[in-house]
């Protein structure tokens, strides 16, 4: 039997993939099937599931409502669409900002002396090894009315004799964006670095020889070749941002519900697992669709990390 394993390629492949399949099917696909079944059910009085085959939860999510203000029997309730859109915008804005900030840093590291590169990379990773929530709390300490940033600005204003009222930075959408960008920046730096590092120096020399100025070199050589890294980084940033709610909770003062909050609430506070399951599935499907089209357009992230 071992010999067959050695020789038959397809059996080798199956052998290699089996442990993964066991985990994926056992711990993910089965719960996912359960979730799907539950999403078609109804909530029982105490928050359990009454199994049925009903689209009520999905209709509710896309805005089908029978409680209409103008007396009509059916109207559109944009509540969940708004929540979904808000999460999407936040994820999009975060990703764009993250790309803008990550690129120069990744470029710098890629062009640095080989021995020091690892150090620079580790320096990027180290903040990730503190606790996620603590990092967000640190931002609260920085941004609040009597926080570090306002204190520093106050000193400076005092020295320059300018009147200064503390900035209200915390509990605003801006704070949420800053927090999100901060949390996910390293996940974009690494993939972009990887792509940039692989670019052969001879390409730059060739471009220079052909008379291209640095800007054109960047536009025609560097940028396209680093796209796989950007794509990979986008996947690593966009998708988690859609689901993260701790940042918006702490830095935004819990004023705004995102998709992640909505789903979490359904399973815990509202005790409506049927609606929560439906919302999760819609989120997953939308995310997969967006990812699919994105990778089709910009190419699959060929080099993700190193």
């Amino acid at each position: 039997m071992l010999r067959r394993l050695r020789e038959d390629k397809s059996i080798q492949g199956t052998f290699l993939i089996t442990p993964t399949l066991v985990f994926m099917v056992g711990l993910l696909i089965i719960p996912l099937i359960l979730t799907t079944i539950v999403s078609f059910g109804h909530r029982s009085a105490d928050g359990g599931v009454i199994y049925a085959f009903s689209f009520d939860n999905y209709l509710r999510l896309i805005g089908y409502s029978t409680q209409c203000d103008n007396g009509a029997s059916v109207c559109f309730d944009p509540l969940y669409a708004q929540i979904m859109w808000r999460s999407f915008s936040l994820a999009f804005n975060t990703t764009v900002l993250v790309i803008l900030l990550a690129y120069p840093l990744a470029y710098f590291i890629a062009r640095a002396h080989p021995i020091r590169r690892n150090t620079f990379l580790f320096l990027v990773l180290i903040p990730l090894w503190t606790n996620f929530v603590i990092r967000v709390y640190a931002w609260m300490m920085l941004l609040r009315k009597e926080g570090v940033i306002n204190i520093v600005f106050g000193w400076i204003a005092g020295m320059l004799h300018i009147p200064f009222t503390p900035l209200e930075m915390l509990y605003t959408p801006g704070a949420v964006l800053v927090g999100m960008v901060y949390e996910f920046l390293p996940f974009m730096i690494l993939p972009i670095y990887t792509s940039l590092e692989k670019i052969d120096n001879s390409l730059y020399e060739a471009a220079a020889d052909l008379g291209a100025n640095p800007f054109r070199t960047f536009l025609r050589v560097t940028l396209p070749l680093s796209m796989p890294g950007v794509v990979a980084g986008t996947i690593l940033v966009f998708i988690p941002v859609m689901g993260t709610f701790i940042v918006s909770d702490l830095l935004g003062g819990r004023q705004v519900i995102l998709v992640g909050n909505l789903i979490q609430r359904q399973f815990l506070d509202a005790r409506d697992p049927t609606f929560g399951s439906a919302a999760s599935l819609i989120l997953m499907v939308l995310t997969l669709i967006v990812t699919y089209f994105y990778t089709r357009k910009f190419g699959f992230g060929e080099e993700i990390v190193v």
Partner: protein
Amino acid sequence: MKKSVVWKLLALMALASMLVTACSGGAKPAATEAPASKKVTSTGYECPEPNPRVQVTSKELNLFVWTEYIPPDVQECFELVYGIKVNRDEYSANEEMYAKLSAGGTSYDLVQPTDYIVSLMVRQGLLQKLDKSKLTVMGNFDPNYLNLSFDPGNEYTIPYQAGTDAIVYNADKVKDPPKSWSDLWKPEYAGKMVFLDDSRATIGMVLLTLGYDVNTKDPAQLDQAKAKLKELVPGIKLFDSDSPKTALIAGDVDLGMTWTGEAFLAQQENPAITYVYPTEGAILWQDNYAIPKDAPHLDAAYAWLNYTMQGDLFWMMLRDFPYTNPNKAALDFAKTNHKDLYDAYMNSPITNTPAEDIKNGHRIDDVGDALPLYDQIWTEIKGGQ
């Protein structure tokens, strides 16, 4: 990276984890070291004798309790005196505890549900009836905290700590302090308020201003509450059910809705912070001990309840946690032995809620199938902007 470097890195990490493991060895309580007469904790506290001492064969006890709600000395004394290893898992919301317990597969001996979730847990068969013959500590409690609506006859729970949700404000910053929940709608407070991120508590508060019951299931009343709450929301700076005192102390907000413990701690940091019971009535709450259905170490659970709630141990709650203490024996012990703590507790209207305010208060209870209505309101006021 070169291979040898990799191995060195892995070795370093393994070394680090070994160091951490070694550290923990030094901190374990020495259960067999102290002489049979007196057990002393690592902070030097002399543990009282269990009265009465019960027979226990279990070697472990699994607690599933609120974060930071049991004085370390109490747990250590129990471990020293009974020689039982206590495993403590924690949660920071009743819903988390409920979700874990109702999914099954867990093996906890004790949980600490708050009043509103007890009836739900009983209906779902998650709790077992208490064997009163094994509970010697029942006589320790103030009768005002027994036999309440959520557990008549205390068949499933015994009281742990209690408190209220009421109005808090910074007297230095708020010149015209609020006296009722409806006062909070005043335009001059806009942009300076913190409210609980708890749909039942906050919507309940709005219902009270309309003269309705906090546990109403009437959709028409809830609709009115939604409209009224929508007027308030633009003026709310943040919702916080984790640590509302932080925003108060830091000056990000000047007033709002919070609960006993937070108000007390905020007042410690800034004496100008004041707690006031609104005229419509505050919201009362109570945390309790309960035993889950499949508790594997029942004898240890009863031993824990009987020992840790003795007056000469439970008084520590006055020292460590600023809540209302339903345990009369603990208060009596503090009165004789820790007078300053006792006085501080009794003199503060935060921990020692005046009787009329308790009578005037309202308790949140489970609303069954009306719960999604409350959640829908919450989602709308937070999601539809």
